[in-house]
């Protein structure tokens, strides 16, 4: 028998309704009631937060380093974008792949084992296709990238003074808001389960809040960077701002953050995507979008000003609810998948999966 005792942690377990100081005991890879066994190993984690290991609703996995980033970032479960590489070693992670909701102008084949259908980083071509996708998905959640491409032609950043000064084409917020409004209208008429990926604008989250009040079956997420960084990040053609959807105005960032805190948004998804070296041998406009996010996602959300318990919920019970999965918890008897976060250093200390440190 092995019995690991984590001592002095703040335990944050939204599914178990717990947020307080206690020790955590792990016996043979499962969580156990305190004092139910004599520890064979003790670790002092005072000052740290311990919470269920995280779920990411959307990341692009390309190389083994992406899995390593997820483990370092406190994740236990990844829903990989359909464009991800297959055949990476999971290293204890639960790796699942979203199915393509469409392929070009046709519906994608519905993989029965897929946790959801996703349009990835591009919109579904037409409202007619979205309608058929919602019908075809039969209660499986459809994850939608909301973008009216007629308003984003040539755009590489969000509209604003920075875009104007740098001579970059900016996408206006209405390119997202108009697509959200249209998709909600389709959802209302068609039924089905719709989830909006990476929302970035005040107008979008306002419409989600209204749709939820109306009782529509809708959920939504935002990325850590859209909760934190505004369009000025592109100053000096900084490639940290080369993300899609683009970074928006400070007012939009604040509105999205507020929506993440008040529950209008259900989850944070990382949008982790590792550009290849070749994709970055071009100037900003021609460089591929994408940034590394898995390793720092949780810390970034905390740094953005989201309270601890809510930040944990956005990465645990939130994504589980979006996917209709059992929410991860730290109750006795559960498999020991948990993360230890150091709020002083604002970094993940380590991840424990099935009782083993990663």
């Amino acid at each position, binding site marked *: 028998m092995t019995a690991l005792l984590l001592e002095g942690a703040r335990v944050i377990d939204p599914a178990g309704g717990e947020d307080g100081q206690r020790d955590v005991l792990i016996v043979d890879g499962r969580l156990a009631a305190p004092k139910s066994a004599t520890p064979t190993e003790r670790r002092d984690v005072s000052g740290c937060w311990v919470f269920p290991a995280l779920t990411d609703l959307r990341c692009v996995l390309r190389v083994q380093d992406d899995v390593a980033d997820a483990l370092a970032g406190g994740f236990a479960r990844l829903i990989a974008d359909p464009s991800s590489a297959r055949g990476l070693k999971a290293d204890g992670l639960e790796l699942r792949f979203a199915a393509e909701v469409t392929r070009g102008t046709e519906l994608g084949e519905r993989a029965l084992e897929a946790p959801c259908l996703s349009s990835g980083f591009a919109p579904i071509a037409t409202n007619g296709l979205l309608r058929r996708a919602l019908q075809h998905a039969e209660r499986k959640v459809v994850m939608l990238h909301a973008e009216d491409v007629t308003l984003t032609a040539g755009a590489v950043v969000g509209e604003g003074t920075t875009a*104007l*000064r740098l*001579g*970059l084409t900016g996408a206006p917020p209405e390119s997202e808001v108009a697509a959200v409004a249209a998709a909600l209208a389709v959802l209302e008429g068609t039924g089905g389960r719709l989830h909006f990926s990476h929302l970035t604008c005040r107008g979008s989250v306002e419409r989600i809040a209204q749709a939820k009040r109306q009782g529509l079956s809708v959920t939504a997420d935002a990325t850590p960077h859209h909760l934190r960084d505004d369009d000025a990040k592109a100053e*000096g*053609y900084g490639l940290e701002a080369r993300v899609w959807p683009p970074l928006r105005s400070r007012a939009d960032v604040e509105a999205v953050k507020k929506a993440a805190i008040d529950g209008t948004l259900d989850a944070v998804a990382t949008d982790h995507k590792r550009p290849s070296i070749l994709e970055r*041998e*071009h100037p900003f406009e021609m460089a591929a979008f994408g940034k590394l996010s898995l390793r720092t996602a949780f810390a970034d959300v905390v740094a953005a000003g989201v309270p601890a318990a809510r930040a944990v919920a956005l990465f645990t019970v939130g994504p589980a609810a979006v996917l209709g999965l059992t929410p991860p918890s730290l109750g006795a008897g559960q498999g020991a998948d948990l993360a230890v976060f150091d709020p002083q250093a604002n970094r993940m200390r380590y991840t424990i999966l099935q009782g083993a440190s990663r």
Partner: protein
Amino acid sequence: MPVFRHLLSLEGMGRPQIEAFFTRAAEFEAGGPHKAPLAGRLVANLFFEPSTRTRSSFEAAAKALGADVLNWTVAGSSASKGETLLDTVRNIAALGPFAIIIRHQASGAAAFAAANVPCSVINAGDGRHEHPSQGLLDTYTLWRRWKTFQNRRVLVVGDVLHSRVVRSNLHALKALGAQVALCGPRSLVHDGWAALGAQVDTDLDRSLEGVDAVMVLRVQRERMADAFFASEREYHQRWGLSAERAARLKPDAVVMHPGPVNRGVEIAPEVADGPRSLILEQVRNGVFVRMAILESVK
């Protein structure tokens, strides 16, 4: 003369630095003695977009200073042929120029090149971002007449959206103390320009009142994928600098255009060739200003 590692933009450049370029350009224009300071050194012209006057002007300036010029013209996009911009600029830098003069269709291309080569980089136009040598030669052309920009009003009219010239001119004119106004169809002149210190108006006749100089921008048809205005006829009627409009300008007001000109669209031929026009003087001054630029980068 101040020394620059690169010349990538005029944003942030102060009045003394800009005026130092003017003073040096004026010395070159006056035929002041200079002993081929760049003799035996190599300048590389790297143009990813077609250009007649900028490339020739830099070449003339480099030769006047005794430098050898390497012209590297890229037909079409090198990226489409598999060569990345990084690869191209590193290859050219390996030939040993002291400066690479680069024009590229992407905003930020010059800064990208500068970050990746050991030599100086001079931006000869990057996407819609900046065209600093054009901004300097335009303001030099005005400075020769005015000597001071206090209480001077400059109107830029036309396709502001697609113009790299407007950004360089705006930053230089503001630094020199001029008032700057922009005019054009709202689809081409974004309200956001007010945040950069320019007045914005869509009515040309109102905008022309009291101005000392009008910079007419080219309608960049090649950059317009969509309809930004109804027709060239309508554009000329509402935003074209016609002979009638030019006649209402202040007696000593001047008219400029960075070229190439769409005659009859943004400017009437008789205005482009008329007594207020400084268009050919701009081209002539460009060589002296670019001599000052080439001398300033180290």
